[in-house]
């Protein structure tokens, strides 16, 4: 057998079918198994990717927020009267000085008004006139903590209140923990779904193998009578399911990959600023590429285990 034919045969494209002692290629279950594994592969790749993207996203969110705090100076006094812009700016200046002097703080920056306008634009529209005091802009100070510093937020807040009782310190902690809890639950769900899909695949492959064995019971018995070892028979099922599973998994992962590309470009078009880019790290991409092989291995292992178990019950 030439190398080319061998390769074609292992890919299932050769005209002449591989020789099996059992008519495995003829029984109707083959198409079902291939389709099933293709569908399972699509689901696996989507669920796994979702898990990866979520874990990457939360990681970056946490890193972006953990060393940061924001001080907000509302543009109103405690009676609800709007403060003129100059007053807000003056209060901001004072608060900034206190913050910058703090030993745990690396930098404290008053956000320029343009930046604040930009941030509130989605809610209030592009052209807010600050001069016509239609919408009073608050002052914001972005604070970056020194690496590893554990600032006493309560004491710091008290210090700030001396400037104005209205000043608020936002550590983002409650927001972060809510988001992290939420995405953590999603991530868990995604991985759990992946696991469920893989278990379903195992169960389905085992069922398909069992039904094939029931169809070919007489032939199996004959092979036994000729002195075939269980492992000899199992090898045929392994080879058969390996080829089917690999074909199915390759097709499934290919389709899954296309779906991923489509959805990532869709997410890109929506420009959701709170979602960082749809990204995965190289080990995760590698893992996805190995998925067809992993699924094939899973199918082969299941086939072997099932065949040996069923054969042991035969004489």
């Amino acid at each position, binding site marked *: 057998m030439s190398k080319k034919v061998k390769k074609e045969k292992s890919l299932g494209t050769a005209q002449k079918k591989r020789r099996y002692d059992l008519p495995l290629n*003829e029984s109707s279950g083959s198409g079902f198994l291939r389709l099933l594994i293709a569908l399972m592969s699509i689901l696996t790749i989507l669920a796994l990717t979702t898990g990866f993207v979520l874990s990457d996203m939360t990681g970056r969110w946490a890193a972006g927020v953990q060393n940061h705090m924001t001080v907000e100076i509302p543009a109103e006094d405690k009676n609800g009267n709007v403060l003129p812009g100059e007053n807000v700016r003056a209060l901001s200046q004072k608060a900034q000085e206190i913050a910058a002097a703090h030993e745990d703080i690396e930098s404290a920056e008053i956000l320029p008004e343009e930046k604040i306008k930009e941030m509130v634009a989605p809610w209030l529209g592009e052209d807010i006139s600050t001069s016509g005091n239609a919408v009073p802009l608050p002052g914001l100070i972005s604070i970056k903590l020194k690496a590893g510093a554990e600032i006493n937020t309560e004491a710091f807040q008290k210090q700030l209140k001396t400037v104005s009782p209205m000043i608020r310190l936002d550590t983002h902690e409650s927001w972060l923990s809510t988001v992290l809890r939420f995405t953590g639950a999603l991530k868990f769900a995604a991985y759990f779904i992946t696991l469920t899909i893989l278990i379903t695949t195992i169960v389905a492959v085992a069922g398909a193998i069992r039904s094939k064995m029931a169809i070919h019971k007489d032939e199996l018995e004959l092979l036994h009578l000729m002195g075939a070892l269980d492992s000899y028979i199992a090898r045929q099922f392994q080879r058969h399911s390996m080829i089917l599973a690999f074909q199915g998994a390759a097709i499934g992962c290919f389709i899954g990959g296309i779906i991923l590309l489509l959805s990532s470009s869709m997410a890109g078009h929506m420009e959701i600023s709170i979602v960082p880019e749809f990204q995965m790290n190289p080990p995760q991409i590698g893992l996805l590429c190995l998925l067809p092989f992993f699924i094939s291995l899973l199918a082969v292992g299941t086939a072997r285990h099932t065949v040996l178990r069923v054969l042991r019950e035969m004489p």
Partner: protein
Amino acid sequence: MIKFEHIGLRYGIGPEILSDVNFSLDPGSFHFLSGPSGAGKTSLMSLLYLGRRPTRGLITMFGQNTGGLTREQLAAQRQRIGVVFQDFRLLNHMSAFDNVALPLRIAGKNEKEIQGNVNELLDWVGLGEAKRSLPNTLSGGEQQRIAIARAVITRPRLLLADEPTGNLDDEIGMRLMNLFEQLNKMGTTIVIATHNQAMMDSFGHPRLVLDKGRLSVEEGSTELRKKLQGVF
């Protein structure tokens, strides 16, 4: 080499098909197994090829008690036994060639050796032309010859044949009996189940006769054997 002691066999809760069967086969012996239809010839054969276990009694084969064999030992013993089934049991999805080659592949022989041996044997049984055909496209007689070729290809130590000449015309039947005689000369122990009185008469081998579940042994005609000695 083979010894049956107080063997009984029943299927499920049915009546005992074989009861208290006792006999032994010496290495290199040749026996006919006869008896009316339904006497249990095929059942006794299935015990001989280790296809089922007796409901009672002790079978010793190749020096081992078959009751205590591991799966590996069982497989190894079965590889030493060639069987021509009454209904052939050929695999219809593979060619005549592959059917005959199957026992060699199971035994792990290399493909070159397999090609040579199988082609030679198929030519010898007159199926050289048909080796690429699927069994179910061949006649009953041709299928029977494939079944016989498959049984003898490994040169088994024990050859069991259940009505092996039933579908064959006299000439091919004689040719195959000739093959069995030659294998027997080379040391193969042979048991052939048959109804064919004429065949049993013309070869003079001892007979195992089954009737109503009981087995009796009839000596062969040594005179006839001597006369035939020159023929084969």
